[in-house]
Protein backbone atom coordinates (compact mmCIF):
# COMPACT_ATOMS: atom_id res chain seq x y z
CA UNK A 1 0.00 0.00 0.00
CA UNK A 2 1.46 3.28 -1.12
CA UNK A 3 -0.03 6.26 0.76
CA UNK A 4 0.75 8.64 -2.10
CA UNK A 5 -1.36 6.69 -4.58
CA UNK A 6 -4.17 6.32 -2.02
CA UNK A 7 -4.24 10.07 -1.41
CA UNK A 8 -4.12 10.84 -5.12
CA UNK A 9 -7.18 8.59 -5.53
CA UNK A 10 -9.01 10.24 -2.62
CA UNK A 11 -8.23 13.67 -4.02
CA UNK A 12 -9.46 12.66 -7.47
CA UNK A 13 -12.80 11.40 -6.10
CA UNK A 14 -13.30 14.60 -4.10
CA UNK A 15 -12.50 16.61 -7.24
CA UNK A 16 -15.14 14.65 -9.13
CA UNK A 17 -17.69 15.48 -6.45
CA UNK A 18 -16.61 19.13 -6.40
CA UNK A 19 -17.61 19.40 -10.05
CA UNK A 20 -21.05 18.16 -9.02
CA UNK A 21 -22.16 20.52 -6.22
CA UNK A 22 -25.71 19.25 -6.40
CA UNK A 23 -24.62 15.76 -5.34
CA UNK A 24 -22.62 17.19 -2.44
CA UNK A 25 -25.62 19.27 -1.42
CA UNK A 26 -27.91 16.26 -1.51
CA UNK A 27 -25.38 14.12 0.33
CA UNK A 28 -24.98 16.57 3.17
CA UNK A 29 -28.45 18.05 3.41
CA UNK A 30 -30.85 15.16 2.78
CA UNK A 31 -30.14 13.25 6.03
CA UNK A 32 -30.40 16.51 8.00
CA UNK A 33 -33.62 17.53 6.28
CA UNK A 34 -35.16 14.08 6.80
CA UNK A 35 -34.27 14.10 10.49
CA UNK A 36 -35.79 17.58 10.78
CA UNK A 37 -38.94 16.40 9.03
CA UNK A 38 -39.20 13.49 11.43
CA UNK A 39 -38.77 15.78 14.43
CA UNK A 40 -41.54 17.98 13.09
CA UNK A 41 -43.97 15.11 12.47
CA UNK A 42 -43.35 13.92 16.03
CA UNK A 43 -43.68 17.39 17.58
CA UNK A 44 -46.94 16.34 19.24
CA UNK A 45 -45.23 13.31 20.82
CA UNK A 46 -41.94 14.68 22.14
CA UNK A 47 -40.84 11.43 23.77
CA UNK A 48 -40.88 9.48 20.51
CA UNK A 49 -38.34 11.66 18.73
CA UNK A 50 -35.97 11.27 21.67
CA UNK A 51 -35.90 7.51 20.98
CA UNK A 52 -36.19 7.34 17.21
CA UNK A 53 -34.20 10.48 16.32
CA UNK A 54 -30.79 9.15 17.38
CA UNK A 55 -31.54 5.78 15.79
CA UNK A 56 -32.19 7.36 12.43
CA UNK A 57 -28.73 8.94 12.63
CA UNK A 58 -27.53 5.39 12.05
CA UNK A 59 -29.87 4.77 9.11
CA UNK A 60 -29.88 7.79 6.78
CA UNK A 61 -26.11 8.01 6.23
CA UNK A 62 -26.03 4.31 5.35
CA UNK A 63 -28.67 4.70 2.65
CA UNK A 64 -27.22 7.87 1.12
CA UNK A 65 -23.62 6.68 1.07
CA UNK A 66 -24.64 3.30 -0.31
CA UNK A 67 -26.34 4.89 -3.30
CA UNK A 68 -23.61 7.41 -4.08
CA UNK A 69 -20.78 4.91 -3.78
CA UNK A 70 -22.38 2.18 -5.84
CA UNK A 71 -23.18 4.57 -8.69
CA UNK A 72 -19.79 6.29 -8.75
CA UNK A 73 -17.81 3.03 -8.72
CA UNK A 74 -20.11 1.47 -11.27
CA UNK A 75 -19.44 4.41 -13.54
CA UNK A 76 -15.74 3.75 -13.05
CA UNK A 77 -16.26 0.23 -14.36
CA UNK A 78 -18.49 1.16 -17.33
CA UNK A 79 -16.49 4.18 -18.56
CA UNK A 80 -13.30 2.11 -18.63
CA UNK A 81 -11.27 4.10 -16.12
CA UNK A 82 -11.08 1.06 -13.84
CA UNK A 83 -9.56 -1.01 -16.63
CA UNK A 84 -7.06 1.76 -17.32
CA UNK A 85 -6.14 1.97 -13.64
CA UNK A 86 -5.51 -1.75 -13.61
CA UNK A 87 -2.88 -1.35 -16.33
CA UNK A 88 -1.13 1.14 -14.01
CA UNK A 89 0.71 0.55 -10.74
CA UNK A 90 -2.35 1.02 -8.51
CA UNK A 91 -3.27 -1.92 -6.28
CA UNK A 92 -6.82 -2.96 -5.45
CA UNK A 93 -6.22 -2.14 -1.79
CA UNK A 94 -5.05 1.36 -2.66
CA UNK A 95 -8.06 1.87 -4.91
CA UNK A 96 -10.55 0.76 -2.26
CA UNK A 97 -8.81 2.66 0.54
CA UNK A 98 -8.80 5.81 -1.61
CA UNK A 99 -12.55 5.48 -2.02
CA UNK A 100 -13.14 4.70 1.65
CA UNK A 101 -11.15 7.79 2.73
CA UNK A 102 -12.95 10.14 0.35
CA UNK A 103 -16.36 8.97 1.47
CA UNK A 104 -15.31 8.79 5.13
CA UNK A 105 -14.60 12.50 4.89
CA UNK A 106 -18.08 13.11 3.51
CA UNK A 107 -19.63 10.83 6.11
CA UNK A 108 -17.87 12.83 8.86
CA UNK A 109 -19.24 16.12 7.52
CA UNK A 110 -22.66 14.56 7.10
CA UNK A 111 -22.79 13.16 10.62
CA UNK A 112 -21.50 16.39 12.18
CA UNK A 113 -24.21 18.34 10.36
CA UNK A 114 -27.03 15.97 11.31
CA UNK A 115 -25.91 15.68 14.92
CA UNK A 116 -25.42 19.44 15.34
CA UNK A 117 -28.85 20.24 13.91
CA UNK A 118 -30.49 17.48 15.94
CA UNK A 119 -29.02 18.65 19.23
CA UNK A 120 -29.64 22.34 18.64
CA UNK A 121 -32.59 23.01 16.36
CA UNK A 122 -34.55 19.74 16.37
CA UNK A 123 -34.58 19.58 20.14
CA UNK A 124 -32.87 16.27 20.63
CA UNK A 125 -32.02 16.15 24.31
CA UNK A 126 -30.04 12.96 24.51
CA UNK A 127 -28.30 12.92 27.84
CA UNK A 128 -24.59 13.33 27.23
CA UNK A 129 -22.10 11.63 24.89
CA UNK A 130 -23.36 12.90 21.54
CA UNK A 131 -19.97 11.87 20.11
CA UNK A 132 -20.84 8.22 20.63
CA UNK A 133 -23.90 8.62 18.47
CA UNK A 134 -21.99 10.67 15.89
CA UNK A 135 -19.40 7.92 15.73
CA UNK A 136 -22.09 5.38 14.89
CA UNK A 137 -23.49 7.76 12.26
CA UNK A 138 -20.01 7.93 10.76
CA UNK A 139 -19.74 4.13 10.80
CA UNK A 140 -23.13 3.86 9.13
CA UNK A 141 -21.93 6.12 6.33
CA UNK A 142 -18.76 4.06 5.92
CA UNK A 143 -20.80 0.88 5.98
CA UNK A 144 -22.90 2.27 3.13
CA UNK A 145 -19.69 3.01 1.24
CA UNK A 146 -18.31 -0.48 1.83
CA UNK A 147 -21.49 -2.20 0.65
CA UNK A 148 -21.85 0.20 -2.26
CA UNK A 149 -18.37 -0.75 -3.43
CA UNK A 150 -19.15 -4.45 -3.12
CA UNK A 151 -22.51 -4.22 -4.86
CA UNK A 152 -21.22 -2.19 -7.79
CA UNK A 153 -19.62 -5.45 -8.91
CA UNK A 154 -22.98 -7.21 -9.09
CA UNK A 155 -24.90 -4.43 -10.80
CA UNK A 156 -24.27 -4.01 -14.51
CA UNK A 157 -25.98 -0.64 -14.96
CA UNK A 158 -26.62 2.41 -12.82
CA UNK A 159 -30.29 1.56 -13.06
CA UNK A 160 -29.66 -1.81 -11.43
CA UNK A 161 -27.47 -0.21 -8.79
CA UNK A 162 -30.36 2.01 -7.73
CA UNK A 163 -32.67 -1.02 -7.63
CA UNK A 164 -30.33 -2.70 -5.16
CA UNK A 165 -31.14 -0.03 -2.60
CA UNK A 166 -34.68 -1.27 -1.80
CA UNK A 167 -33.52 -4.88 -2.18
CA UNK A 168 -30.57 -4.54 0.15
CA UNK A 169 -31.36 -1.70 2.54
CA UNK A 170 -35.13 -1.87 3.14
CA UNK A 171 -35.15 -5.40 4.62
CA UNK A 172 -32.52 -4.24 7.10
CA UNK A 173 -34.61 -1.21 7.90
CA UNK A 174 -37.63 -3.43 8.65
CA UNK A 175 -35.63 -5.79 10.82
CA UNK A 176 -33.24 -3.46 12.63
CA UNK A 177 -35.55 -2.73 15.55
CA UNK A 178 -36.79 0.66 14.43
CA UNK A 179 -40.41 -0.48 13.97
CA UNK A 180 -40.53 -3.54 16.21
CA UNK A 181 -37.88 -4.18 18.86
CA UNK A 182 -35.68 -7.07 17.72
CA UNK A 183 -36.61 -9.00 20.86
CA UNK A 184 -40.28 -9.07 19.82
CA UNK A 185 -39.65 -10.39 16.30
CA UNK A 186 -40.54 -13.99 15.37
CA UNK A 187 -37.57 -16.23 16.18
CA UNK A 188 -36.51 -16.81 12.57
CA UNK A 189 -36.50 -13.08 11.84
CA UNK A 190 -34.71 -12.32 15.08
CA UNK A 191 -31.89 -14.65 14.10
CA UNK A 192 -31.57 -12.82 10.77
CA UNK A 193 -31.85 -9.37 12.37
CA UNK A 194 -29.07 -10.17 14.82
CA UNK A 195 -26.52 -10.62 12.05
CA UNK A 196 -27.47 -7.53 10.03
CA UNK A 197 -25.18 -4.51 10.23
CA UNK A 198 -27.98 -1.97 10.58
CA UNK A 199 -29.20 -3.78 13.70
CA UNK A 200 -25.76 -3.34 15.23
CA UNK A 201 -25.91 0.39 14.45
CA UNK A 202 -29.32 0.75 16.09
CA UNK A 203 -28.29 -1.36 19.10
CA UNK A 204 -25.17 0.74 19.62
CA UNK A 205 -27.16 3.97 19.51
CA UNK A 206 -30.02 2.79 21.73
CA UNK A 207 -27.64 1.45 24.36
CA UNK A 208 -24.94 4.08 24.20
CA UNK A 209 -24.89 4.52 27.98
CA UNK A 210 -23.53 1.02 28.55
CA UNK A 211 -19.91 1.36 27.50
CA UNK A 212 -19.24 -2.35 27.17
CA UNK A 213 -22.40 -3.05 25.13
CA UNK A 214 -21.76 -0.01 22.94
CA UNK A 215 -18.18 -1.11 22.34
CA UNK A 216 -19.34 -4.60 21.38
CA UNK A 217 -21.89 -3.36 18.83
CA UNK A 218 -19.39 -0.79 17.58
CA UNK A 219 -16.83 -3.54 17.00
CA UNK A 220 -19.43 -5.49 15.00
CA UNK A 221 -20.04 -2.40 12.83
CA UNK A 222 -16.34 -1.90 12.20
CA UNK A 223 -16.09 -5.59 11.34
CA UNK A 224 -18.84 -5.19 8.75
CA UNK A 225 -17.09 -2.16 7.28
CA UNK A 226 -13.83 -4.03 6.79
CA UNK A 227 -15.71 -7.10 5.57
CA UNK A 228 -17.58 -5.01 3.01
CA UNK A 229 -14.37 -3.31 1.86
CA UNK A 230 -12.73 -6.74 1.60
CA UNK A 231 -15.57 -8.06 -0.54
CA UNK A 232 -15.35 -4.88 -2.63
CA UNK A 233 -11.63 -5.44 -3.20
CA UNK A 234 -12.20 -9.12 -4.01
CA UNK A 235 -14.77 -8.30 -6.67
CA UNK A 236 -12.32 -6.07 -8.52
CA UNK A 237 -10.76 -8.15 -11.27
CA UNK A 238 -7.63 -7.10 -13.05
CA UNK A 239 -8.36 -9.66 -15.75
CA UNK A 240 -11.80 -10.33 -17.15
CA UNK A 241 -13.12 -13.20 -19.23
Amino acid at each position, binding site marked *: MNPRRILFTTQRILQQLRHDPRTIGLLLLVPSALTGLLAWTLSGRPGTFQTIGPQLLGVFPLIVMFLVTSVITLRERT*VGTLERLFTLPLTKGEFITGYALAFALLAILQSILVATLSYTWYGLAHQGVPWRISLVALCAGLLGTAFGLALSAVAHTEFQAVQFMPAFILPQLLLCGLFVPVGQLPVALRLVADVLPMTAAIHAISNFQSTSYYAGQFAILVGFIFGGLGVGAATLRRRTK
Partner: protein
Amino acid sequence: MIDVKDLRVIRQGNEILHELSFRAGAGELIGLLGPSGSGKSTLMRSLLGVQMLSGGTLQILERPAGSASLRGALGYVAQSSSVYLDLTVEENLRYFAGILHEPRSEVGRVLAVVSLTTLAGRVVSSLSGGERTRVSLATALLGSPPILVLDEPTVGLDPILRRDLWRTFDELAKSGTTVVVSSHVMDEAAHCARLLLLRDGRLLFDDSPAKLLAAAKSSSYDEAFERLIESQS
Protein backbone atom coordinates in the same frame (compact mmCIF):
# COMPACT_ATOMS: atom_id res chain seq x y z
CA MET B 1 9.18 -6.22 -27.11
CA ILE B 2 6.03 -8.20 -27.93
CA ASP B 3 6.01 -11.96 -28.47
CA VAL B 4 2.66 -13.62 -29.08
CA LYS B 5 2.57 -17.42 -29.57
CA ASP B 6 -0.53 -19.45 -30.43
CA LEU B 7 -2.73 -17.02 -28.51
CA ARG B 8 -6.27 -18.24 -27.98
CA VAL B 9 -9.05 -16.31 -26.26
CA ILE B 10 -12.50 -17.72 -25.57
CA ARG B 11 -15.20 -15.34 -24.36
CA GLN B 12 -18.59 -16.66 -23.32
CA GLY B 13 -18.05 -19.90 -25.20
CA ASN B 14 -16.95 -18.22 -28.44
CA GLU B 15 -13.38 -18.49 -29.59
CA ILE B 16 -12.50 -14.88 -30.41
CA LEU B 17 -8.80 -15.39 -31.23
CA HIS B 18 -7.56 -18.59 -32.87
CA GLU B 19 -3.89 -19.46 -32.29
CA LEU B 20 -2.53 -16.08 -33.18
CA SER B 21 1.24 -15.55 -33.39
CA PHE B 22 3.40 -12.53 -34.11
CA ARG B 23 6.38 -10.65 -32.74
CA ALA B 24 7.13 -6.96 -32.67
CA GLY B 25 10.33 -5.09 -31.89
CA ALA B 26 11.17 -1.63 -30.59
CA GLY B 27 10.23 1.32 -32.79
CA GLU B 28 7.71 -0.53 -34.95
CA LEU B 29 4.54 1.23 -36.07
CA ILE B 30 2.04 -1.57 -36.50
CA GLY B 31 -1.44 -1.18 -37.90
CA LEU B 32 -3.87 -3.77 -36.60
CA LEU B 33 -6.61 -3.71 -39.20
CA GLY B 34 -9.79 -5.64 -39.61
CA PRO B 35 -13.56 -5.24 -39.61
CA SER B 36 -15.38 -4.74 -36.31
CA GLY B 37 -15.78 -8.02 -34.51
CA SER B 38 -12.55 -9.41 -35.92
CA GLY B 39 -10.91 -9.55 -32.49
CA LYS B 40 -8.79 -6.39 -32.58
CA SER B 41 -9.89 -5.09 -29.20
CA THR B 42 -9.59 -8.53 -27.61
CA LEU B 43 -6.02 -8.81 -28.91
CA MET B 44 -5.20 -5.36 -27.55
CA ARG B 45 -6.72 -6.14 -24.17
CA SER B 46 -4.67 -9.34 -24.14
CA LEU B 47 -1.48 -7.34 -24.74
CA LEU B 48 -2.41 -5.16 -21.78
CA GLY B 49 -2.97 -8.15 -19.55
CA VAL B 50 -6.58 -7.33 -18.68
CA GLN B 51 -7.98 -10.19 -20.79
CA MET B 52 -8.03 -13.77 -19.51
CA LEU B 53 -6.18 -16.02 -22.00
CA SER B 54 -7.41 -19.49 -22.94
CA GLY B 55 -4.22 -20.74 -24.55
CA GLY B 56 -0.81 -19.83 -25.88
CA THR B 57 1.66 -17.36 -24.43
CA LEU B 58 2.01 -13.62 -24.56
CA GLN B 59 5.29 -12.04 -23.50
CA ILE B 60 5.81 -8.30 -23.18
CA LEU B 61 9.40 -7.12 -22.56
CA GLU B 62 10.24 -10.74 -21.73
CA ARG B 63 7.58 -10.98 -19.04
CA PRO B 64 4.12 -12.54 -19.24
CA ALA B 65 1.46 -9.94 -20.14
CA GLY B 66 -0.31 -8.68 -17.04
CA SER B 67 2.73 -9.07 -14.74
CA ALA B 68 2.78 -6.55 -11.93
CA SER B 69 6.17 -5.28 -13.14
CA LEU B 70 4.64 -4.36 -16.51
CA ARG B 71 2.10 -1.96 -15.04
CA GLY B 72 2.78 1.44 -16.51
CA ALA B 73 4.98 -0.02 -19.27
CA LEU B 74 2.11 0.02 -21.75
CA GLY B 75 0.14 3.12 -22.63
CA TYR B 76 -3.44 2.30 -23.53
CA VAL B 77 -6.20 4.05 -25.41
CA ALA B 78 -9.36 1.98 -25.21
CA GLN B 79 -12.42 2.44 -27.41
CA SER B 80 -14.24 4.04 -24.51
CA SER B 81 -12.46 7.23 -23.51
CA SER B 82 -11.41 5.76 -20.15
CA VAL B 83 -10.94 9.13 -18.49
CA TYR B 84 -13.10 10.79 -15.86
CA LEU B 85 -15.82 12.73 -17.65
CA ASP B 86 -16.56 14.85 -14.58
CA LEU B 87 -12.97 16.07 -14.15
CA THR B 88 -11.08 18.67 -16.16
CA VAL B 89 -8.48 17.54 -18.68
CA GLU B 90 -5.70 18.63 -16.36
CA GLU B 91 -7.19 16.99 -13.26
CA ASN B 92 -7.43 13.73 -15.18
CA LEU B 93 -3.82 13.87 -16.27
CA ARG B 94 -2.57 14.94 -12.85
CA TYR B 95 -4.28 11.96 -11.27
CA PHE B 96 -2.90 9.40 -13.70
CA ALA B 97 0.53 11.07 -13.53
CA GLY B 98 0.34 10.78 -9.74
CA ILE B 99 -0.43 7.06 -9.95
CA LEU B 100 2.57 6.65 -12.27
CA HIS B 101 4.84 8.77 -10.01
CA GLU B 102 5.47 11.18 -12.85
CA PRO B 103 6.20 14.86 -12.11
CA ARG B 104 3.62 17.56 -12.86
CA SER B 105 5.71 18.84 -15.77
CA GLU B 106 4.84 15.59 -17.56
CA VAL B 107 1.19 16.76 -17.72
CA GLY B 108 2.15 19.86 -19.70
CA ARG B 109 4.34 17.82 -22.02
CA VAL B 110 1.66 15.28 -23.03
CA LEU B 111 -0.94 18.03 -23.41
CA ALA B 112 1.34 19.73 -25.94
CA VAL B 113 1.89 16.47 -27.85
CA VAL B 114 -1.85 16.06 -28.47
CA SER B 115 -2.42 19.86 -28.87
CA LEU B 116 -4.81 20.12 -25.94
CA THR B 117 -2.97 22.76 -23.91
CA THR B 118 -5.69 25.36 -24.48
CA LEU B 119 -8.40 22.95 -23.27
CA ALA B 120 -6.58 21.91 -20.06
CA GLY B 121 -9.13 23.59 -17.79
CA ARG B 122 -12.23 22.20 -19.51
CA VAL B 123 -14.32 19.43 -17.97
CA VAL B 124 -14.02 16.36 -20.21
CA SER B 125 -17.79 15.86 -20.55
CA SER B 126 -17.98 19.23 -22.33
CA LEU B 127 -15.48 18.11 -24.99
CA SER B 128 -16.21 16.57 -28.37
CA GLY B 129 -15.57 12.88 -29.08
CA GLY B 130 -12.34 13.63 -30.89
CA GLU B 131 -11.08 15.82 -28.05
CA ARG B 132 -11.90 13.11 -25.52
CA THR B 133 -9.91 10.61 -27.55
CA ARG B 134 -6.96 12.98 -27.41
CA VAL B 135 -7.30 13.29 -23.63
CA SER B 136 -7.21 9.51 -23.50
CA LEU B 137 -4.15 9.49 -25.76
CA ALA B 138 -2.43 12.10 -23.60
CA THR B 139 -3.04 9.85 -20.58
CA ALA B 140 -1.49 6.92 -22.44
CA LEU B 141 1.61 9.00 -23.23
CA LEU B 142 2.33 9.86 -19.56
CA GLY B 143 5.76 8.62 -18.60
CA SER B 144 6.65 7.75 -22.22
CA PRO B 145 5.91 4.02 -21.96
CA PRO B 146 7.95 1.77 -24.33
CA ILE B 147 4.76 0.30 -25.82
CA LEU B 148 1.59 2.08 -26.88
CA VAL B 149 -1.60 0.14 -27.56
CA LEU B 150 -4.17 2.37 -29.24
CA ASP B 151 -7.63 0.99 -30.00
CA GLU B 152 -9.19 2.95 -32.88
CA PRO B 153 -7.79 6.31 -31.75
CA THR B 154 -8.56 8.03 -35.08
CA VAL B 155 -12.21 7.00 -35.44
CA GLY B 156 -14.55 9.93 -36.01
CA LEU B 157 -11.78 12.53 -36.21
CA ASP B 158 -11.48 15.11 -38.96
CA PRO B 159 -8.86 14.39 -41.65
CA ILE B 160 -6.40 17.07 -40.48
CA LEU B 161 -6.48 15.80 -36.92
CA ARG B 162 -6.11 12.23 -38.14
CA ARG B 163 -3.08 13.16 -40.19
CA ASP B 164 -1.54 14.95 -37.19
CA LEU B 165 -2.13 11.96 -34.95
CA TRP B 166 -0.52 9.58 -37.44
CA ARG B 167 2.46 11.96 -37.56
CA THR B 168 2.64 11.79 -33.79
CA PHE B 169 2.53 7.97 -33.87
CA ASP B 170 5.27 8.00 -36.50
CA GLU B 171 7.47 10.28 -34.39
CA LEU B 172 6.90 8.12 -31.33
CA ALA B 173 7.88 5.02 -33.29
CA LYS B 174 11.00 6.76 -34.61
CA SER B 175 11.99 7.55 -31.04
CA GLY B 176 11.88 3.84 -30.22
CA THR B 177 8.31 3.32 -28.96
CA THR B 178 6.47 0.28 -30.26
CA VAL B 179 3.10 1.59 -31.41
CA VAL B 180 0.19 -0.76 -32.13
CA VAL B 181 -2.77 1.10 -33.63
CA SER B 182 -6.04 -0.57 -34.56
CA SER B 183 -8.55 0.63 -37.10
CA HIS B 184 -11.41 -0.74 -39.13
CA VAL B 185 -10.70 1.79 -41.89
CA MET B 186 -8.46 -0.02 -44.37
CA ASP B 187 -7.06 3.19 -45.84
CA GLU B 188 -5.28 3.91 -42.58
CA ALA B 189 -2.95 1.06 -43.55
CA ALA B 190 -0.99 3.58 -45.62
CA HIS B 191 0.35 5.23 -42.45
CA CYS B 192 1.85 2.06 -40.98
CA ALA B 193 5.19 0.44 -41.51
CA ARG B 194 3.69 -2.97 -40.88
CA LEU B 195 0.18 -4.36 -41.16
CA LEU B 196 -1.53 -7.10 -39.26
CA LEU B 197 -4.83 -7.95 -40.91
CA LEU B 198 -7.27 -9.68 -38.64
CA ARG B 199 -10.49 -11.38 -39.66
CA ASP B 200 -12.65 -13.67 -37.51
CA GLY B 201 -9.84 -13.92 -34.99
CA ARG B 202 -7.26 -15.13 -37.48
CA LEU B 203 -4.22 -13.31 -38.78
CA LEU B 204 -4.60 -13.08 -42.58
CA PHE B 205 -1.59 -10.95 -43.39
CA ASP B 206 1.55 -9.71 -41.66
CA ASP B 207 3.81 -7.54 -43.78
CA SER B 208 4.23 -4.01 -45.14
CA PRO B 209 1.33 -2.12 -46.77
CA ALA B 210 3.24 -2.01 -50.06
CA LYS B 211 3.47 -5.82 -50.10
CA LEU B 212 -0.29 -6.07 -49.52
CA LEU B 213 -1.05 -3.88 -52.51
CA ALA B 214 1.51 -5.68 -54.68
CA ALA B 215 0.19 -9.12 -53.75
CA ALA B 216 -3.37 -8.08 -54.58
CA LYS B 217 -2.34 -6.14 -57.68
CA SER B 218 -4.50 -3.30 -56.50
CA SER B 219 -4.13 0.31 -55.49
CA SER B 220 -6.91 0.31 -52.91
CA TYR B 221 -6.52 -1.21 -49.46
CA ASP B 222 -10.19 -2.13 -49.30
CA GLU B 223 -9.90 -4.08 -52.54
CA ALA B 224 -6.64 -5.68 -51.46
CA PHE B 225 -8.28 -6.87 -48.25
CA GLU B 226 -11.24 -8.28 -50.20
CA ARG B 227 -8.95 -10.20 -52.57
CA LEU B 228 -6.94 -11.49 -49.67
CA ILE B 229 -10.09 -12.91 -48.06
CA GLU B 230 -11.26 -14.44 -51.35
CA SER B 231 -7.89 -16.02 -52.03
CA GLN B 232 -7.91 -17.67 -48.62
CA SER B 233 -11.44 -19.01 -48.64
